[in-house]
Structures are given as structure tokens and as C-alpha cells.
């Protein structure tokens, strides 16, 4: 099958057009995933654009995005496939009075017609190009992870009553994890690993410029700088990129074009969500005053 990208640079340029600013690492891994036909496991702090990456890749490759949101208690019937029991029952009842052999009925009710596809199977059976996003995979129990292994390594699903369904085309697969627990070795081994951290200041500034219309370059620069300084504090939850964008939007709405200690103190609750973090940041802003004053 044809590779989707010609080289690393083109991945980056394409992602750019989709308004996703990738760095070398991100573009390189996406390119490699396409060439090697391997899933990507994306890890990193919340709100750094892990899910967005999958969406943007779907957008630039013109593929349909199929999303499986993971949660505790997710099972086969929700992730892979399920037999349509009601329809099967109806079928059996309909045949009751005719003299069709039971074997024939059995074959019949375990055919594709009675199969309800769930996201994973759907991604495998799709005719058109798809991007499969398995979101927050660290939320499922470690046993449930095993459900994913077959599809991740061989792009196929085995159904005991029916046989093995192989992928018509190899989808690009993204798994995201917030790293709340260690994923199993088996899963990690099958994936390429990509860690997306908070962006460098320059990149964050570009992201702010891209996402917030009407923001002045100067303000974007200041925003990125302040956020970087805040991230260096020891916080419970450092500000994410989306929070940076929210903050920049707020500043624009308030008509501020120069952030000083006062405005920063007043609006910092948009960036930080824990009271102790906010207190710490405010203390830090204030300290910078006496520091040189």
C-alpha cells in the first residue's frame, strides 16, 4: 500500500496547514508510523494536544476518524464487536416452523449480518482510509488492554464463531495516555512511543498566534513567556496549552495588550485550577516585585 507521506518535512508542512504545529519529534514519529505500519502511543501531560494530533492527522490524510474512548469497565462488547441477540432470536423464531436444519440456522445466525461492529472492528473493516484513535488507554484495566493487542500487532480481529477478519487497509492508530498508570510491556512493545511535552516557548507563541485571532505578536510573546515561567514552579498541575490559549483569549477580550503583575494576578485563575497553585503563582508574581524594588 502506498505510504501517506513522502518525507518528514512534508508531514510537518501538512500538519501546519491543518493548524497543528508539530516539532521534529512529532513529525518524525508520525512519518515512521506510516512507513512501518505501527501504532503510535502518545504520552504526556494533559492538554498538550495528544488527541488533537490524531484529529489533525486524520484531517490531512483525508481519512475518517474512528474514536474509542476508554474508561474503566470497557469490555469486548463495547470495544470490538457484539452479536445482535435480538435479531438472532427473531431469526430462530422465524425458522421454527419450517424444516430447516439446525446446523444451517446456526451458520446463518453467526454471519456478518448479525454482527454489531464496535470502533475497533469498524476501523478494521473500513474500506476507506481511517485513523483510529484509542483515547486515554490508561483508564482501562490492565486485563482489558489484552483486547487491543491483536489489532495493534496484526490488524485483525478473531471472532470465535465466525473466523478472523483482517484489515482491508492498515489504519493509522493513535493511542493516548495520561500516564496515570504504567501500561503493559506487551502493549508498549507493539507501539512507537511519542512523548509530547509542553511546547517550547517559541512554538507555544506560534500556537497562540494561530489559535487566537486578533492577538498582537507582542502579547503572544508575553503570554508564552509568563506561562513558561509559571511551569517552572512546582505545581500540582502546570498550565496546559489549551489553558494558555484560554488565557490569551481572555486577555484579548479584556483589551489588555501589556501584561503586568497586577493583570497576571487577576487572571491567573484561568491558567491554574488548584487553589494552592494559584496562591503559589501569585506569591511568585509579588516576589518578583520586591526582588528588584
Amino acid at each position: 500500500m502506498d505510504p501517506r507521506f513522502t518525507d518528514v518535512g512534508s508531514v510537518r508542512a501538512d500538519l501546519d496547514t491543518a493548524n497543528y504545529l508539530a516539532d521534529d519529534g512529532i513529525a518524525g514519529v508520525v512519518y515512521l508510523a506510516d512507513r512501518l505500519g505501527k501504532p503510535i502511543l502518545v504520552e504526556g501531560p494533559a492538554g498538550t494536544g495528544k488527541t488533537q494530533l490524531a484529529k489533525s492527522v486524520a484531517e490531512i490524510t483525508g481519512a475518517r476518524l474512528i474514536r474509542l474512548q476508554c474508561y474503566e469497565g470497557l469490555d469486548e462488547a463495547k470495544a470490538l464487536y457484539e452479536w445482535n441477540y435480538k435479531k438472532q432470536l427473531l431469526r430462530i423464531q422465524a425458522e421454527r416452523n419450517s424444516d430447516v436444519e439446525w446446523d444451517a440456522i446456526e451458520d446463518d445466525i453467526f454471519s456478518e449480518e448479525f454482527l454489531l461492529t464496535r470502533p475497533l472492528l469498524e476501523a478494521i473493516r473500513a474500506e476507506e482510509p481511517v485513523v483510529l484513535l484509542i483515547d486515554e488507554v490508561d483508564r482501562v484495566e490492565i486485563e482489558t488492554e489484552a483486547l487491543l493487542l491483536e489489532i495493534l500487532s496484526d490488524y485483525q480481529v478473531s471472532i470465535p464463531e465466525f473466523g478472523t477478519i483482517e484489515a482491508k487497509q492498515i489504519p493509522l492508530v493513535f493511542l493516548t495516555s495520561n500516564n496515570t498508570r504504567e501500561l503493559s510491556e506487551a502493549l508498549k512493545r507493539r507501539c512507537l512511543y511519542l512523548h509530547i511535552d509542553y511546547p517550547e516557548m517559541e512554538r507555544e507563541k506560534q500556537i497562540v498566534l494561530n489559535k487566537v485571532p486578533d492577538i498582537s505578536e507582542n502579547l503572544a510573546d508575553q503570554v508564552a513567556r509568563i506561562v513558561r515561567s509559571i511551569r517552572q514552579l512546582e505545581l500540582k498541575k502546570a498550565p496546559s496549552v489549551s489553558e494558555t490559549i484560554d488565557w490569551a483569549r481572555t486577555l484579548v477580550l479584556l483589551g489588555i495588550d501589556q501584561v503586568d503583575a497586577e493583570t497576571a494576578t487577576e487572571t491567573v485563575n484561568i491558567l491554574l485550577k488548584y487553589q494552592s497553585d494559584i496562591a503559589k503563582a501569585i506569591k511568585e508574581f509579588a516576589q518578583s516585585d520586591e526582588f528588584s524594588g
Partner: protein
Amino acid sequence: MSSTESPVDPAEAAGGSPMLDLLSGFIIELRNAGLPVSLTENLDAMEAVKHIPLEDRETFKYALAATLVKNHSHWKAFEIVFEVFFALRGSEYDISDEDRFGDPADLDDDENGEAQGQGQSQGQGGGGGEALSPEQLAKMLLDALRKGDQAMMRALARQAVRRYAGMEPGRPVGGTYYLYRTLRNLDLDGMMDELMEQRRAEAPDGQLSQFDERLERDEFNIRMEQLKKEIEAEIRRMLVADRGVEAMSRTLRKPLPEDVDFMHATRDEMNSLRKAIYPLTRKLAARLARKRKYGRRGPLDFRKTVRTSLSYGGVPADPQFKFPRPHKPEIFVIADISGSVAAFARFTLHLVYAISSQFSKVRAFVFIDGLDEVTRFFDGVDDIGEAVHRVNTEADVVWVDGHSDYGHAFGVFWERYGKDVGPKTTVLILGDARNNYHASQSWIIKEIQSKARQVHWLNPEPKSYWDTGDSIVGEYTEYCDGVYEVRNLRQLEGFVEKLI
């Protein structure tokens, strides 16, 4: 492994073979550094490099990392191995240029050659090929720092190392020594002041607002850090050139964060440990909560089964099971916070409080030669790090001279809090039991053990040092339910998990 069979064009295959040898050497080195690299990952890496243009060093590095490193905390270790291993092989390094230790006269040619060879990565930076005077170097560096010109900084870092580090071939000193020498000569603090001075002068009214001042300072600090990194990398490259890959990867091998020894951690390592502890506690809490939730199927409850069977006419159709009542222990942590073991105590307190929801009560006591209860510092605080910091600074733990006296500290504990120890209490004692030849008073531990549910002793020293010198851990061991060597986060995590 299924996808490793893809068409390879002959040119790639021909050039690939030495590359593969190189790669397997690299992977062995990674394993030596403690990274778990499986066979599949090895094969993936080999497949991956076929698709990546080798001239692009960064992409090459990320490609290897994506296939070989599956845990972000291992990234740093990977980076060092990569830098060392591919130091002489990067595109910007021509072997002929590596004759670094020659006499100063051919330094210039050397520089020029490199400047050309480096093309895009160095930009105009290598242009300063002619030997610079120290003043010129300082000025250019200042300039580069002010503009944040990375390429220039890299070139100047190289110059600075050559000029100031005073590296001699075969001299058995570590990289930190050279780093120190280089930095001392560059006087970065002075540069910082100068940079800030310039910024102030540039500001509209000749004065920066305090807030801006702070931001500018952060900015320059980060650039300085970058510069230091460049210098370090340069020193590393030169050392590799001098001593060879093997020797250097051995000396530069750093333990992974979870294996760093508490007692001998450097300040940097301490910082990375402090950062590592947050996710660790979160993960541990999640795992324990899950264990409590699912690990509850008990053995068959015979009496109950028979009783229910009566309603089915004596057929035991509905077996009943015992559900073990998960006990929530009370935890008493008694920690030595003198000098060398303080870091260890800090991490343990941190961990215990982070999972305090798993216990019915946690009380903490710290001592050196006196003892103080510090539970109050943790009450209603949601920033554990801050509370632990207060423990270390505010607790009243000195009795006579501030040298560990376990005997006296235990005496105080027994007198004041002994009555609170009950059958639900698990006592954790943290310390190296180096008692400065005071009396051990081990009878107190014996008394505590007879009243408490369990007594555990965690010792941050390697087992082979126990009971040497003034360590008397053996005298206490007799009365403890378990004595554990806990030298790093991995062991600490393992212990805490076992506790529940």
C-alpha cells in the same frame, strides 16, 4: 514483527549493513545503561532507520527513541548514550577534524573546516574561525545570549571549551572538572548582570517594571542553561574522542531516576527525584485503590453456605464467600531527619501521606536526638511537598547537640506517645541506626512491638554497611517484624505496596 517485511531498495540495503552493526552496538549500550530493550524493539529500530535520512541527526534520534524508549523517564539516559555513541559519527563530525588536542596553531584550520562542514546547523556561527581573544569571545557570547542565537552559542561553546577547559589527552579527570573550569572562566554571573543592565537601558524609561525584570531574567537563565548544555556536550564529545566510546559510556552511565540512591544523590538528581515522586504517588494510589476494589474474593464461607442452602431444600446452590474486611491500618512514621538520611525521610513521608486515604490515620514523628510530632504540618494541607519542607525546617528535634541519638529519641516517643500505640498501629521507623555510640534502648522497640500490630524498619544504607561502625541496626532488628533496605524510589514503592 509482522510488518518488518517491507520492500527495501538495494541502495539502502547495501548502505544498511554497517549501520545495523552500529545499531546493535548502540542497543547493547542502552541495555548496559539499564534500559529494557526487547528483541522486537530492536528489530523495529533497524527497520526504522531504513526510512529515515541519516543526515538528519535530530530525526534519526527521535526515530530511535520512538522505537527503543517506551518510558519518558528513561529519555535522559537514552540521550546521553546517544550523544556518546554517535558523537564521532554525526554528520557534522568528520573524523579528520577530531584531532582536537593538537597544538594551537592548527586550531584555526580545524575550525574553518568544521564551519564549512556544518553548513545549515551552524549557519553563520562558525564564521568566527580566527582565534578570538578572550574579550572578543566574551563579547560574542554576550551577543549570542542576548539574541538567543543557538547556532552561535554552540560555536562559541566549542571555542570556550577549547580555550578554557585545558583538556589534556589521557588525563583521568571527569567531565565535571572541565565543565567547572570552563564556566569559571566565562563568568556567567557577570554576564547575567550585564545582560540585565542592557535590557534595562533598552526599556523606554530606562527602567523595567519588576514583573518584566523577572521574565527577562527567566529568559536569560534558560539561555544560560542551554549554553551550559552545549558546553557539556562539547566536553563529552572531546572526551569520547580522547578515550573512546566504551570507556565514556561506562563513566557517563547514570542510574535511571527510580534507581538513584537517596544517600548519594546529587542536587540535580534530587530535583528529578522530587519531580518523579508526584506521578509515582498518583500511580501507586490508583493501583492500591484498584487492588482494594478487586482483590476481595475470599474463601468459601461454609456456615453461611449451609444456612442459605436450607432455602433450596438443602442443596448448596448458592455458595457464599467470605469477604475479607480490608483493614485500614494506622500508620506511625518515626523518621530520622539528620543530615544524610533526611532526603530519604522526606520521600517516605511524601509517599505515605500521598496514599494516606489508604490508612485510617497517619501520624508522623521526626527526630535527631530529640523527637517531635509533625502531624500538624500535614493537617488540611494539600501541598505535601510544602508540608515536608516545613517539617525539615520547623520541627523541634534537637535535644543536646544535634547528632542522632536513637535511644533518647525512642525514649521520648515512648514516654509521650507510647500509650497511643495500639493493636491497629503499624509503626515504620526510618533511619540508618547510626547512633554515635549512644545507648540503643532497644527495649523500647520491644515494648512497641508487643503493643503494635507490626514494626518495620526501613534503612537507606546498603545492607553490607549495616552493623559496621556506629550502626546498630542489628540490635533493633531483633524486635522488628521486618527490616528493609530502601535505597531508591523503586524499593520504596515496592515496600509501600507490600504494606497494604
